[in-house]
């Protein structure tokens, strides 16, 4: 639904462009589309109501309806209003002036607290902090074992006392341990609880009182529906959480719940969990979420990821080569390795603008990471000279490469041919022409 909202708006409004001017009725029609799309994305219905009223007001305001492309104008307004709703710039965790920074994690059952704890531990650990985890979920069977296992993977110290002691006491004891062991950041995992469970909510309040956390984070499943607002309001009232960790964002949920929570509680989303692996937790960038929701891609995240895995000199050299069509299979191999460092190909592609629609096709044709393994194997079976100049590759070389990589001559042929096409396309890209995504995909396969 949502991936096409911007397209649908454009379509709805461009139909009437031929008549010259947009009328208020046209705008109402667009608002209905927006309302439907937002509801399908699980944005709370009260937030939707307020939102469409605001957008409508701006659309009817100065100049929009008479502009050359009112469709684009409306999309722009929706985008900026969504961004405003998601709220300002991203925020950091509060840090203790001395002693360990304490982070209390709370949330419903199954929202992903324990996993989020371990991922956050890994994230902070990668920042050079000494991280501790306290296992206060004495409720769910084997929750302590889960935290111990995942904590180990994250390289954090896990403080646990089994399931017989009171979680409030375990939390306090854990904090004492963290102090004496010089821990920089202490993350407290708690049992999942329903926001209407008075007893367990009292327990959470008690943990908060005793450990005086610098940050209380609500862990929220990105797939949550209309109820997200009730949950957030209850947790806000009882434990005054400071921010949200959004989990399971690697699914195809639009995350309208997150948007609603921000709109209703005013609490920012600090982190988003985007995959099964322990390092797949990211700082959340609210200003980028609106575009992602509208299907405009998340170029900024993509660029940042690319920056993380490549260095500037290399990038400049590469750009020069691409422009001059001197890009070799060797460079291609290096690039492919770097792209793969950014995560599974599907995630990376999902962030590219214009890929919203293409992603559907991609899912069908299935961007297979194993396919990339095969490509890698083929290139690795070539000599350096062949990689620099694929025209060298004649019949007998093809046979040798196919044998060496465990593939077929046809596969080698295909790679060489597609590489040629890709080289052309990349040169175009570098000159600022955006190739058709479908065409690009064909090149990549």
């Amino acid at each position, binding site marked *: 639904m949502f991936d096409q909202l911007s397209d649908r708006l454009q379509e709805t409004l461009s139909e009437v462009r031929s008549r010259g001017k947009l009328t208020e009725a046209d705008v109402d029609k667009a608002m209905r589309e927006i309302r439907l799309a937002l509801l399908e994305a699980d944005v709370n219905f009260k937030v939707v109501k307020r939102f469409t009223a605001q957008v409508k007001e701006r659309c009817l305001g100065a100049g929009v309806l008479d502009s050359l492309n009112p469709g684009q104008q409306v999309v722009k307004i929706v985008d900026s209003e969504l961004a405003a709703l998601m709220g300002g710039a991203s925020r950091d965790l509060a840090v203790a002036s001395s002693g360990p920074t304490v982070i209390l994690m709370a949330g419903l059952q199954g929202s992903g607290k324990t996993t989020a704890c371990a991922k956050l531990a890994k994230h902070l650990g990668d920042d050079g902090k000494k991280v501790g985890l306290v296992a206060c979920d004495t409720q769910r069977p084997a929750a*302590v074992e889960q935290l111990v296992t995942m904590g180990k993977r994250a390289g954090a110290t896990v403080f646990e006392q089994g399931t017989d002691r009171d979680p409030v006491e375990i939390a306090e004891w854990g904090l004492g341990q963290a102090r004496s062991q010089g821990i920089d950041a202490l993350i407290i995992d708690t049992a999942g609880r329903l926001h209407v469970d008075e007893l367990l909510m009292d327990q959470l309040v008690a943990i908060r009182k005793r450990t005086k956390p610098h940050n209380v984070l609500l862990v929220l499943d990105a797939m949550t529906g209309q109820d997200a607002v009730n949950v957030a309001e209850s947790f806000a009232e009882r434990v005054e959480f400071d921010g949200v960790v959004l989990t399971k964002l690697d699914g195809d*949920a639009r995350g309208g719940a997150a948007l609603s929570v921000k709109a209703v509680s005013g609490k920012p989303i600090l982190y988003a969990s985007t995959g099964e692996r322990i390092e797949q937790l990211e700082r959340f960038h609210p200003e980028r979420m609106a575009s992602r929701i509208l299907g405009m891609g998340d170029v900024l995240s993509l660029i940042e990821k690319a920056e993380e895995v490549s260095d500037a000199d290399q990038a400049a050299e590469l750009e020069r080569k691409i422009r001059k069509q001197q890009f070799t299979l060797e460079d291609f191999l290096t690039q492919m390795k770097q792209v793969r460092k950014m995560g599974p190909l599907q995630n990376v592609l999902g962030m590219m603008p214009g890929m919203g629609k293409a992603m559907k096709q991609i899912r069908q044709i299935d961007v297979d990471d194993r396919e990339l393994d095969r490509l890698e194997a083929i290139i690795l079976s070539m000599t350096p000279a062949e990689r620099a100049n694929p025209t060298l590759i004649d019949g007998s070389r093809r046979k040798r490469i196919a044998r060496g990589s465990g593939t077929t001559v046809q596969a080698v042929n295909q790679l060489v041919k597609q590489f040629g096409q890709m080289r052309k396309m990349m040169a175009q890209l570098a000159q600022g022409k955006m190739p058709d995504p479908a065409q690009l995909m064909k090149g990549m396969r």
Partner: protein
Amino acid sequence: MEWEDLIHNVPSGSSQGASATGDPSAARIPPGPDGSDEGRAAQRGGRFARLRERLSKSRQALSAELSASLFDKLDEETWERLEEALIVADVGAKATAEVVGRLEQEVVSGEVSGPEATRERLIELLAELAGATAPRIDLAETPTVIMVVGVNGTGKTTTIGKLAAVLKERFGLSVIVAAADTYRAAAIEQLEVWAQRSGTEIVRGNSGGDPGAVVFDAIAAAEARGTDVVIVDTAGRLHTHDNLMEELAKVRRVAANRLEGAPHETLIVIDATTGQNGLRQARAFAETAGVTGVALTKLDGTARGGIALAIAGELGIPVKMIGVGEGVEDLRPFDAEEFARALLDE
């Protein structure tokens, strides 16, 4: 709706265990003396009251949206408020529009008139959406293999623990649970605790091992011992991860290769707090794993689980059971009418 209405072809010679249950309310209510269902109807009233109490004990009264007097006056505002109430319950814009549109049309045409009749018709329409026929789980095969799938954190393991207890205590069946979630840390241990509680056997492999092998072993063990039911716990996975979905398809194939017709039942566990994404989840799992029913969990919060209606309506996958609390007795067979009423917080 009782468990006996949901679960059919219970293997013979196993019913003596039914009286062993510790929950007095779980005892079977025989039909009335004249053969009518009066006895059961009375029981249903009691059940219904209990469910309603569970479901609504903490909900902010929807009465603001849907007061008893909602249908007193039938105008534009009524339909709008009704729409909002259903949207808030996560029924989804599409299914909501269908139900409300139909009700409105029937009222306008005069087919339905009066507040009481309108309300009852609404319940009927919602119940119809949930499924025209009563859901059933068939245990004719020995062993019957029930596979449980779903995204992460919906309550698969807990549901399996409860279901195993119901089959064992209420129906006196022998059950093996297969710990085929070899991915999540401590998932096997979690299932082990549940198996201990309900006194069922568990077949497990190693953490990180092949889930298919666990299922293979579990079915083999069940065949060797004449066990009635095998319940397979699978790792939670997001439906967008194609490789993990492929793994699930493989586990299914392993089961089918070991025992023809297995898995006989595949339940997707959906968290009641799930929004419209639940539809995509159900669709993807149905494609890969041939889902035959929904278990809707966590209905004891403020979420109403309307997504189950959207799933049933759009994909034709019936809801078979619901979870309304932490206790074993809080897993219940699904009753469409009861659910529709609870949805509107009557």
